[in-house]
């Protein structure tokens, strides 16, 4: 077992059962998929600002391709970038070393879940090679649009012609990805409950471990109806059943219920690990105990439970019962209370702290600021059905959505990445390049979406390929200008990611060697070598205290590791 390091490239990247290697595989795969998601958004944003012809690196964009790119951009960024980075990478890499154990409870299951995830990536991309082209009906896959050309509606098709379509491959890819994340989730929860080091009681777990586990449980309990719905939709496409066919007694709205019963908790599944990592970082770099640790956990559990009963706020314009819409509005607005409590805890942690502005801290603060002040506040507006009915099909929703998920996945994800990079690679990242990357990303991210808020309030509809075809669709010079600002900002945002890529590959080979505990943090992962050896600890730590004993009055140093008596 100890000779593990001598294994070659193939063994490390394809067959290793070590949780750190599997986490790294997830990370590389997610970065690979993010390249697709980023390229797609570049192509269709360029089209919206400067027209569909002669897009650099792409060529001409047809309306159908526009729909396909928008659909796959959404799906890739949520299911193949957000989920693996925030659940699988953070969970795989951090849970075992943070709770002080050698590996996952089921290492083989962990490996299988990665393989299934990789397969789902290929199935999704294979959708682009189908004779009908990739799926272009929106990442929410609403029927009847997602079924209309196939199954019962098209008697000329057979099972196999229906099978080799973008729609089928898209559904199969999403289903495989869910199965992979379900297996991973079971593994994380069992590992956390069963493999904690001596003395690591539940109330001594680092916040991010709590968050990943709550997110996994939430995922497991919300995804079932969507898997059931996916079976039904798949059968509608493949063999022509009538589950969502209004003529046959099916109800397309039922799909929306099944989808959003999962879809809304999904946002929190992504948010929780990210906000957990941000909590770790804020506490470490403020050199203060996390303010209201138990309260944050309680708030998050309440928010997770509430998130299961707010889904219909995505359907205010789908013709649901107005009485029900009022109830869902109320519940949606109530859910902001636990999140406000959580943000308050983080601000309380920062209050009068000895703040160190290291790179991860900037990302964490950027995440907290944009998520709360733009994503959260506009969420309050959209949660109210009165406003939502006007804003729902406009760019206001797009901007709101990206202000919740971009900070969650990318700002929070990069915060975690810069923070734990020394641990997983054994080297420090270049700070100057990190700061350039942060400010480039942060400024251009805001200048993409603030114009879109304004355009949305002006009434610019979403999901439209070409505004110039209708002169009444906001073709005034200021509207065109706003679209161009957003697009140019997006191109700069993407260019700044190359700074990160360079920094990543340069630092992993040639960066400055990292010590065991470069950030002077308390949690267990900083008590072992960087990178941790196979088996992580020798000897295994015994936990004496909670993870946030910064500036403890009885201690000389301003931090006190969890394993210190």
């Amino acid at each position, binding site marked *: 077992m100890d000779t593990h390091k001598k294994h070659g490239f193939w063994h490390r990247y394809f067959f290793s059962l070590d949780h750190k290697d599997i986490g790294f595989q997830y990370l590389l795969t997610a970065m690979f998929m993010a390249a697709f998601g980023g390229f797609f958004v570049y192509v269709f944003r360029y089209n919206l600002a400067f027209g569909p012809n002669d897009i650099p690196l792409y060529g001409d964009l047809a309306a159908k391709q526009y729909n396909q790119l928008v659909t796959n951009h959404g799906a890739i960024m949520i299911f193949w970038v957000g989920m693996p980075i925030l659940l699988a990478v953070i969970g795989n890499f951090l849970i075992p070393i943070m709770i002080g154990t050698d590996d996952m409870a089921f290492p083989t299951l962990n490996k299988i879940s990665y393989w299934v995830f990789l397969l789902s990536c290929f199935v999704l991309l294979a959708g682009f090679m189908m004779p009908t082209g990739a799926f272009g009906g929106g990442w929410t896959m609403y029927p009847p649009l997602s079924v209309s050309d196939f*199954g019962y509606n098209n008697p000329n098709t057979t099972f196999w012609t229906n099978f080799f379509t973008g729609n089928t491959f898209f559904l199969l890819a999403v289903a495989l990805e869910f199965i992979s994340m379900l297996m991973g989730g*079971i593994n994380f929860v069992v590992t956390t409950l*069963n493999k*904690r080091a001596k003395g690591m009681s539940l109330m001594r777990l680092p916040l991010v471990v709590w968050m990943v586990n709550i997110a996994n449980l939430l995922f497991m*309990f919300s995804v079932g109806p969507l898997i059931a*719905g996916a079976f039904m939709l798949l059968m509608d496409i493949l*063999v*022509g059943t009538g589950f969502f066919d209004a003529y*046959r007694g099916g109800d397309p709205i039922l799909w929306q219920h099944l989808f959003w019963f999962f879809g809304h908790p999904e946002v929190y599944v992504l948010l929780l690990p990210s906000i957990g990592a941000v909590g770790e970082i804020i506490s470490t770099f403020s050199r203060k105990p996390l303010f209201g640790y138990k309260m944050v956990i309680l708030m998050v559990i309440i928010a997770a439970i509430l998130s299961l009963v707010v889904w219909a706020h995505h359907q205010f314009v789908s013709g649901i019962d107005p009485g029900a819409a009022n109830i869902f509005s109320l519940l949606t607005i109530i859910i902001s209370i636990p999140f406000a409590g959580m943000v308050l805890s983080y601000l309380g942690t920062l209050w009068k702290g000895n703040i160190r502005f290291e790179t991860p801290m900037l990302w964490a603060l950027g995440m907290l600021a944009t998520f709360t002040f733009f994503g959260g506040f506009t969420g309050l507006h959209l949660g109210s059905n009165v406003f939502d009915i006007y804003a729902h099909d406009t760019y206001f929703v797009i901007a709101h959505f990206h202000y919740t998920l971009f900070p969650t996945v990318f700002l929070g994800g990069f915060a975690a990445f810069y923070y734990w990079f020394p641990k997983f690679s054994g080297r420090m990242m270049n700070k100057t390049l990190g700061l350039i990357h942060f400010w480039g990303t942060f400024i251009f991210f805001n200048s993409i979406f603030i114009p879109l808020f304004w355009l949305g309030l002006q009434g610019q509809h979403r999901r439209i390929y070409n505004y110039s075809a209708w002169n009444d669709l906001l073709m005034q010079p200021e509207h065109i200008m706003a679209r161009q600002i957003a697009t140019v900002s997006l191109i700069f945002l993407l260019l700044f990611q190359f700074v990160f890529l360079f920094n990543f590959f340069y630092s992993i080979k040639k960066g400055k060697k990292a010590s065991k505990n470069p950030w002077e943090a308390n949690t267990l992962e900083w008590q072992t070598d960087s990178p941790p050896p196979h088996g992580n600890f020798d000897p*295994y730590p015994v936990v004496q205290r909670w993870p946030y004993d910064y500036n403890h009055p009885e201690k000389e140093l301003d931090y006190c590791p969890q394993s210190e008596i």
Partner: protein
Amino acid sequence: MNTKQLLKPTMKDIPQGRLGMWLLIAGEFVIFGGLMVSYLLYRMRYEQWAEMASHTNVILGAINTFVLLTSSYFVVKAHQAAQRKDSKKITMYISLTILCALIFLVVKITEYSQKLHHGFTFSGKELAASGKAIESSYWGFYFLMTGLHATHVVVGAIVLFIVMQGARKGKNYHRIEIAGLYWHMVDLIWIFLFPLLYIAH
């Protein structure tokens, strides 16, 4: 290396295999729950579906319920034998369980062929063509739910067979219990499906 092994941290309040299986079962119940709720919503909306439900074969369904319940009893006996590490008894009871699974599948195939013979197909195209468009979706649910359950029966039987091979060689006795938990779940789902699809008119 040995000292490392000794100090390996685990809490082990609940054996981790059992805990993992419980979580899997919880996940499975939400999946079937989604299907059942969708079915019930349609069922309450369309009175025509009651007539369709009367075409199901209650006697064959009842036989299958009895077969599955019996198989669960055998799994419990196998679990008891596993606690005594009695390989022979384990092999016998698990074999009986797998036999029950096979009987279940044979009855299921008989039922399916009867339905298809009467023109009640999965896609329901034939019914829709004869003017019963709304009724046709009932059979979609019937075949999807029972088919998905039958797939679980097949998977469960395969898992039990693999686990039995281990027990025959005298190792991994605890896996009998975990595979047994899965089998009870398969049984329990059928207990929900049987009244929903067959009995309620």
